[in-house]
Each structure stands twice: as structure tokens, then as C-alpha cells.
């Protein structure tokens, strides 16, 4: 099977391209995504290949973008809209929370729409271009939330997200776009939403995480193994809603120690939900308190010195795991 080494970004582009090829009902729109290819060039070349009727630019109107996608999705299209940065989605979150998330429950009408939202920091984006907002989306009934960490998953899960009959928020960690590559087959199958993946086995503790932090956790786990401190499992959640709680409980059962890691704010971050699930469902399996390693509750600072202190990384995870293993 022919393979190629592709970036996380290229994986997303391939999924969009395949969707546009195979599914005439798929349309892409957003700010600057047409001939310009988007702020991150994820849609580069797609307008040229599929025409401006299927890949098009819009005014800077997040609520009109999300609202129109809902209307389209009920009328036979499958819109995939891009928010230029996840941060800007907050100007229109009522469209998701009230319109999209309640629609099927109230009316029985499905709205198969996907919102692609580049998120996360680590590159000097500062307080308004680095936000991690997954906990907001996970709190909304009727919304699914996908957050891949690897090119293979980015590609395979995006296809499934778009084909899902529900509104899906698909979070793209910007740090991964060009930092993460994989050798992947040119032929690929979509993978189902809602399934976590053990991306490193381990018996002494488990890190529950997603997105860019999966890679930091893997680095920390490798180091701990190299140092003979312990074997730490890394569970990549991949989909935050629906959440693969069985995989979480199984991971806790196998390790009895849990560290939760994410890049978003601490209080009411998605890690709180993960900790609560563990406390409810796997309490009897725990040998130590559930730990959360997250960003602190402060705006995302710009200066590299500050952002490095702000953002969890392999080093901090390593330290937290050492403490957890010693408990």
C-alpha cells in the first residue's frame, strides 16, 4: 500500500478533499478559506478543485456562518465551516448552544454540520488566539466534540464527524498542524467517533489526555520508562463527547493511578469532567487521588517565558507523574 509522510494539517486537508469528492452535499465555507486557503492553509487548493459554489468565503460574521450552517444542514447539505480561530466562535456560541444543540431534541430534525475550530497555544498567539474552549462545547447537549492528536485520527475522524447526523465541533490544535507528522497509507477508512485509544501501554499510572498534550504525555512517559521509574499508559481520548468512559475505567483498572492533562484552564475545564467520571465510576480502583495538570486560571500570556510556564508540557507532566507514582 503506498504511503506518504503527512502533517496533521495535510491530514485534515485530505479528509476535506475526499469528502468534497465523494459527497456532493458537502460544502466548505468560512473566512478567507477560498482562494487564499484559510489562515492556516488547511483548505489550500480546494476552491480551485471544487469551485466557488462548494468552497467559499464569507463576511466576518460568525453568527451568520454558524446559523446558516444549521439551516443548510436541515435542507440536504452537509456544511463544514471554519472558524478562523476557535476564540472567535465565542461571538456566536448561542447558535451552537441554543439552535444547533437543541434542534433534534425539539423537532426531530437532524443538522449534520461540522465546525472546524483551530485552537490552542504554544506559539506566541497571546490571549485571543490560543484559547482552549472544549469544556464549553462538551457542556452543550446535542453537540459532539472531536479532538484528534495524530494525523491518522485527524483524517479518519474528520470524515466521520462530517458524516455524523449531528452538529460536531472538530477542534484542531494549531501546534500540531506542522509539528506532527506520520507515515500514512494513501488509502484509509473513516474511524468511528467516541472511541479512545491507548497510544502507550503502561501499568503504573495512566494519563488521560487529548490534543497536543498527548504528545507531551508520551514524551514524559518515555522518559519515565527510560529512567526506570515506571510504565505509564497514555490514553488519547480522541472524542470528548461522546466520551469513551469504558476505556477510561479500563485504564484506571489497569493502572490505579490517574493524571489528567489538558491545555485549557483549570476550573471547570474538561479535566474536571474526567476527574468526576473517575471519581464516580472508578473510585474503588484508585490508589491515589486523581491529579489534574492543566493551564492555570489566567489568560494565555504572550511572552515565551510566561507562555512556557502557562502551558503544560512533558517536563511538567514528568514531574506530576513522579509525584503520583510516589504517592
Amino acid at each position: 500500500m503506498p504511503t506518504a509522510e503527512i502533517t496533521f494539517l495535510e491530514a485534515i486537508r485530505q479528509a476535506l478533499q475526499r469528502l468534497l469528492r465523494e459527497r456532493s452535499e458537502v460544502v466548505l465555507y468560512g473566512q478567507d478559506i477560498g482562494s487564499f486557503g484559510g489562515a492556516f492553509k488547511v483548505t489550500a487548493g480546494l476552491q480551485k478543485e471544487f469551485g466557488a459554489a462548494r468552497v467559499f468565503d464569507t463576511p466576518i460574521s460568525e453568527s451568520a456562518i454558524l446559523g446558516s450552517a444549521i439551516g443548510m444542514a436541515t435542507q440536504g447539505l452537509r456544511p463544514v465551516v471554519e472558524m478562523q480561530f476557535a476564540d472567535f466562535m465565542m461571538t456566536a456560541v448561542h447558535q451552537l448552544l441554543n439552535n444547533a444543540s437543541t434542534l433534534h431534541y425539539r423537532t426531530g430534525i437532524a443538522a449534520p454540520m461540522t465546525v472546524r475550530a483551530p485552537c490552542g497555544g504554544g506559539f506566541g498567539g497571546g490571549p485571543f488566539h490560543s484559547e482552549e474552549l472544549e469544556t464549553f462545547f462538551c457542556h452543550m447537549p446535542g453537540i459532539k466534540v472531536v479532538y484528534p492528536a495524530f494525523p491518522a485520527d485527524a483524517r479518519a475522524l474528520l470524515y466521520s464527524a462530517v458524516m455524523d447526523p449531528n452538529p460536531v465541533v472538530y477542534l484542531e490544535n494549531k501546534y500540531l498542524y506542522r509539528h506532527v507528522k506520520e507515515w500514512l497509507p494513501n488509502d484509509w477508512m473513516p474511524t468511528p467517533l467516541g472511541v479512545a485509544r491507548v497510544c502507550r501501554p503502561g501499568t503504573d499510572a495512566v494519563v488521560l489526555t487529548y490534543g497536543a498534550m498527548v504528545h507531551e504525555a508520551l514524551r514524559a512517559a518515555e522518559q519515565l520508562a527510560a529512567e526506570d521509574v515506571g510504565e505509564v499508559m497514555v490514553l488519547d481520548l480522541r472524542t470528548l463527547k461522546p466520551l469513551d468512559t469504558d476505556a477510561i475505567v479500563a485504564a484506571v483498572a489497569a493502572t490505579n493511578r490517574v493524571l489528567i492533562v489538558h491545555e485549557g484552564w483549570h476550573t471547570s475545564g474538561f479535566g474536571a469532567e474526567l476527574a468526576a467520571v473517575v471519581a464516580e465510576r472508578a473510585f474503588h480502583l484508585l490508589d491515589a487521588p486523581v491529579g489534574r495538570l492543566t493551564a492555570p486560571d489566567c489568560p494565555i500570556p504572550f511572552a515565551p517565558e510566561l507562555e512556557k510556564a502557562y502551558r503544560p508540557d512533558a517536563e511538567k507532566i514528568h514531574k506530576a507523574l513522579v509525584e503520583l507514582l510516589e504517592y
Partner: protein
Amino acid sequence: MNRKADISKDAALAMLRCMLLARRIEERMVRLYHQGQIFGGVYTGIGQEAIGTATTSAAGPDDLFAPCIRDMTVHVGRGTTALTIFRQFLGRVTGPTRGRDGNVHYGEIERGVFSMISHLGAMLPVVTGGVMARRRLGRDTIGFAYIGDGGTSTGDFHEAINFAAVLDVPVIFVVENNQFAYSTPTSYQFRCKNLVERAAGYGIEGFTADGNDAWALRELVSKLAAKMRQQPRPVLLVCETLRMRGHGEHDDASYIPRELLAAWAKRDPIALLRERITQAQFATATELAALEQAVQTEVDESYQQALNDPLPDAATLTEGVYADG
């Protein structure tokens, strides 16, 4: 007045029936509310029936609608029955939202009507997107989006109209200026003389109309709709009317000057259309009385039937949050 009747007898009588049916349903709901028999609030469009009536009457079968809280005549005009409406308002499992909502937030999408959410303005981009989809799929759809004078102050009003203008989406943005947004007169919502002055800023055409004259409004909307099907562009249509009751039935509307109410009561849209119909000799007094009677019977029977319908089962609470793959 002696004007050429572009409007057929059938269309005129259907409009009258539409308004009467909505009026009688709403009157019933008002009575029930004040008898303490309603869970939640009651919000009516009494006095504003001509707008939904005329616009749906002028519309085509494939058109899409996003009505607001006072637009029962949009639903009735699209064929939603009194029975369906009572089932909705009484929270019956047989209603369009199966008891999940029990208020004005309903719509039968198979008739082209979206189910509104409360957030003012939020439905305007939704109907815009629906029209975009249908047209891409080859249907000759135009959209009708309704919004109150107060709703024009929302960011969504602006984003949606501008979006439709830039993307050439044929939607009629119908502003129902009923002169009040809850307790506040329009001077608290805008400072232009007439909201139609907003049209130029979007590079679209704007029109004003008497919102109580269904006959004239239907003629205007027919023309607009025909043009929009040729040249797909949005338009802004500002209809002047008055909210004849409180914001909801919990509100006695004491802030609306009594003389204003009295003046508009003389321009009741049902009476105006009845007059037009009589002038056009489309129906005799006896025929009109029969129509009224038929409507009343439909309302009475539908209400009774809905009352007997089952309430939702608590066991179904969490069903259908997601659509099945």
C-alpha cells in the same frame, strides 16, 4: 376604494380564513391563560395577523420561513392545523415538539417552516442557510425571515442581512414594527425615522408597507417574490402595525397609550380584509358568517381533541438528544 383585484377569490378567502383561525386560537389561549389553565406563558399576534397571512399567501410551495413569536398566521398560512397548534401549546406528545416545547417555538419543516428559538435574530441566518441549500439543490426557494422592531437591535439581524446580501441569497427580511419591544417604544431601539433606511446600507432594496392591510401586502410581496426568483437578492420589508395586547398575557400593556390602541383597533386586519372581500364581491355576508362559524368549530373541536391527547411520558425524557447515525 376601487382597485384592480390581482387577488383571486380563493386567495382572498383563504387569507381571511387564515387570520380568523389564528385569531380564534389565540383568543382561546388568552382565555385559558387568564383562567389559570396554562403552564408557562401566552404570547399572541393579535392585530398583526395580516403579515404572516399575506406573505405566506404570496409565497411558493418550496419557500422557507422563520416566523417569530407573533406569527401564528405563518404557520396557518402554510397549512399547519389548529389541532397541531393546540397540541403544541398544551405540551402534548402528539404536537410538533412532542411536549419538549409548549410555546411559540414550533414549526413544521415539511411545510417549509423552521421552529424558532427565543434568541432574537438567531433564526435569520438559519433561514438564509436553508435557502442557500435548497437553491444549490435546484429548488426555486426564496426565504421569509420575520423579526420585530426590537429584534433589529441584535447583532444577528445585521450579520444575517449582510451575509444574505453579500452571498445573493433571496430572503425577504420582514420587520414587523409593532411599535413596542416588550415595554419599550421604538425610540429605545433605533433612531432612524423608518427602519427601511437600513436597506441602503446593505446594498439591497427596501420597502415599507401597511402591516394591517393583507390585500395590499400580498400584492407587494407577490411582486417582490417574483422578482427575487429571477434575480436572487435579499430585500428588506418593513411592515407597520401595533401590538394590541401585552408582550405576553402576564403583561397588561399599560405603557401603550390607550388612544394608540383605539386608533389601531379601527384598522383591525381582519375587518379590513373582510371589507375588501365584500367590496370585491367575493363573498356574501352569509358566506362570511359561514366561514366564521366553520373556523370556530374547527377551533373548538381541535382544542377538545388536543386536550384528550396524551402527555409526554417522563421515561422518554432523554430520547432524541442526538440523531442516530
